[in-house]
């Protein structure tokens, strides 16, 4: 009798021979699995882009607290440190009257009318403010409530949350929706992918029904019959993963600038390059798992007797 090493060798040899001999079917099965793995990669890209859109939107949302002209810098700093003690606040930025003026001037540098009007004024017309960013967009309401109850409330001229409230609410709905629907879509497509792979592998094995029957009749043990098909299934998955990896990166490289022009600061290619050691093993894992599982389920039918 053969030992473990020999039988592993034989199993891989038979699996490889089947793979080669049925090259037409193998190509078909591998092709389907390539499509499936591309689908997975595409879904991963979409999820990444969606999360970037959501966090970009959330990044843009903040609440500014404008102070009356008689508020001193110390008082404002005290409000700032009060806010920073709140767990829900991510950061607070102080913008003094002078800074606000400078920024305003910069923004309207080319506009002579604005520049002239400013020069006419003796006093800085802008107010000092605090820009508050919350860790989570849903927490702005509670931060504003906190400010309303603060002992320095009398120094505050206005809080622009009330103007931004609707925008914030809409961002929240959109990001929630994107995440939920993205998840549902991913699951649905993944299910379709699994079914397609399963059926393709099943057809491949069905074409070797006669061989399986004869193997059984001449007394091959179930495991000896099954193992080469599992290996074959795994090979389809691994080959498909190789093809997908080789094709995916160039495609991402070409698409990336186009996406970046739509969504500045979002780089698909650098995301996948920096995660290459997660992405490539994951694709291989999904491919091999899909192939082996499909073979396993498909061959069970032919081993009943």
């Amino acid at each position, binding site marked *: 009798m053969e030992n473990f090493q020999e039988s592993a060798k034989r199993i891989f040899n038979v699996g490889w021979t089947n793979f080669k001999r049925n090259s037409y079917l193998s190509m078909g099965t591998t092709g389907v699995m390539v499509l499936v793995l591309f689908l997975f990669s595409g879904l991963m890209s979409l999820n990444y882009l969606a999360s970037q859109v959501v966090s970009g939107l959330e990044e843009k949302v903040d609440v500014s607290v404008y102070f009356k002209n008689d508020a001193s810098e110390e008082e404002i700093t005290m409000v700032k440190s009060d806010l920073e003690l709140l767990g829900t606040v991510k950061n607070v930025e102080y913008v003094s009257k002078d800074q606000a003026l400078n920024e305003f001037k910069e923004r309207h540098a080319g506009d002579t009318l604005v520049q002239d009007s400013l020069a006419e004024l003796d006093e800085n017309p802008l107010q000092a403010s605090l820009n508050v960013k919350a860790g989570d967009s849903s927490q702005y309401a509670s931060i504003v409530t906190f400010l309303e109850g603060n002992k320095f409330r009398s120094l505050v001229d206005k809080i622009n949350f009330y103007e931004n409230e609707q925008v914030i609410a809409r961002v929240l709905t959109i990001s929630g929706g994107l995440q939920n629907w993205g998840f549902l879509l991913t699951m649905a497509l993944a299910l379709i992918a699994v079914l397609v792979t399963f059926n393709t592998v099943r057809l491949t094995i069905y074409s070797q029904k*006669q061989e399986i029957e004869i193997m059984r009749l001449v*007394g091959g*043990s179930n495991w000896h019959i099954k193992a080469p098909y599992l290996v074959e299934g795994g090979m389809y998955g691994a080959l498909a993963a190789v093809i997908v990896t080789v094709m995916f990166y160039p495609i991402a490289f070409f698409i990336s600038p186009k996406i970046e022009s739509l969504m500045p600061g979002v780089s698909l290619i650098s995301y996948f390059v920096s995660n290459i050691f997660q992405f490539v093993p994951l694709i291989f894992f999904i491919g091999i798992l899909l192939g082996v599982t499909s073979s396993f389920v498909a061959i069970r039918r032919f081993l009943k007797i």
Partner: protein
Amino acid sequence: MIEFKNVTTIYDNDETIEILNGVNLNIKDGEFISIIGPAGAGKSTLLRLLTREISPHKGEIILDGVNLAQIPSNAIPLLRRKIGTVYQDFKLLSAKTAFENVAFAMEVCGADRDEIEIDVPKILGIVGLGDKLKSFPHQLSGGEKQRLAIARALIHRPRIILADEPTGNLDLVNSYDVVKLLMKINELGTTVILATHNREVVNAIGKRVISIEKGKVVRDQVENGKYVL
């Protein structure tokens, strides 16, 4: 030693359709048995019970003191290696050569390469195909195909050979070749059970003949049996 005790089988779990109906048989080691009967009498069923492709609905089958129904399913391959089977349609793999077809039966049982290289040419020599190792089934005549199938059945040195209409697709000359081979195997000590409805073949063998009709044993000629239904 094979014993059928009051064996009844049904078709597809339907108790109203009985294939075999209370069959009792005793087969001693080294016997050559011809099972005859019209199509649908239950000859193939009898053979398939022995390899446990099917199980009896009632009664029991005992092989070497072991009730076949009690063999766990992971031990069925071991049972099948003790029994060689030959079919009317040969069941050869068309994409494999004669050598590979026989080697295949050894491979699935886990034989190593050296054993295969020695045993396969030897067994093909015994059945008279020593010069056809590299031929594919479509390059062989009907008789040669069946001899190849017999070689495959013999490769595990089984104690029992089951032959289900092995001459059904063969002309008279080839049929005699195959039967002569089976008789030779029997002389070397292997029990042979042959299911057939070929009158000439049965009469030429002249050994024990069991007639089955409508699922019952209707006649058991222990010696020098003839084809009588």
